[in-house]
């Protein structure tokens, strides 16, 4: 009898622990690990890239976002990739774009979702292998993911 009760408690405890492990939201740590995956061991400096987001957002379901990189976009000196990551969305990655000299201008616009008041970081990788970043703090009045599905 003892052994079955013990076994049951062990299983139940294990199941409870497994439920707790996954946080509901991404954390600054998960953003840091997402950045680490993009950048690797290279260092990241602020500058060159410009992230454009409104500082105060009423509705996080659609937020107009623009990313521009200061680069001549020639065959020798161009932007290889642009990434955007967030701190508190359920999943840190937003968009990853591969560019090349054919782009002519590194200027991308899209609409994103933001779940909460948080920091958004844009990272660009240049053709010489250097990484540059820009970040913006955004205040969200109504976050995405809160409304009920229709």
């Amino acid at each position, binding site marked *: 009898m003892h052994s079955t009760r013990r076994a049951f408690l062990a299983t139940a405890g294990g199941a409870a622990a497994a439920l707790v492990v996954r946080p509901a939201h991404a954390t600054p740590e998960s953003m840091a690990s997402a950045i680490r995956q993009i950048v690797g061991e290279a260092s990241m400096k602020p500058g060159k890239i410009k992230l454009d987001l409104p500082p105060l957002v009423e509705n996080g379901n659609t937020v107009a976002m623009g990313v521009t990189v200061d680069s001549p976009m020639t065959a020798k000196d161009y932007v290889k990739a642009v990434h955007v990551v967030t701190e508190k969305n359920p999943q840190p990655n937003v968009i990853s774009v591969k560019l090349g000299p054919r782009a002519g201008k590194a200027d*991308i616009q*899209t*609409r994103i979702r933001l779940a909460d008041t948080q920091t958004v970081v844009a990272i660009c990788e240049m053709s010489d292998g250097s990484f540059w970043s820009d970040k913006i703090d955004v205040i969200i009045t109504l976050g995405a993911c809160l409304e009920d599905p229709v």
Partner: protein
Amino acid sequence: MAARTLINVPQKAKRGDVIQIKTLISHIMETGFRRDNVGALVPRDIITSFTCTYNGETIFDAELHQAIAANPFITFHTVATESGTIAFRWTGDHGFLQEASAKITVE
């Protein structure tokens, strides 16, 4: 599964000009984090990738995630090099695939 697309590419351009391309596709971009009215998770259904080719050469390749708003709208630029076709391709969950193209005349 046909989705509506809206594409804005200039019909004519001068050789070497940087042109702006705007694309919009109707898609729910369901995140997979929301619950329905009985508490079950709504399965994820998003567009995961968008690519644009200019006469067969890839000029823009984006990986999209759940944080892209519904009906993904993407604006980007390219250099008008020669007359031809600019083709767009969206792929996503559950075998979603949508293609569109536009013609451009370069003088």
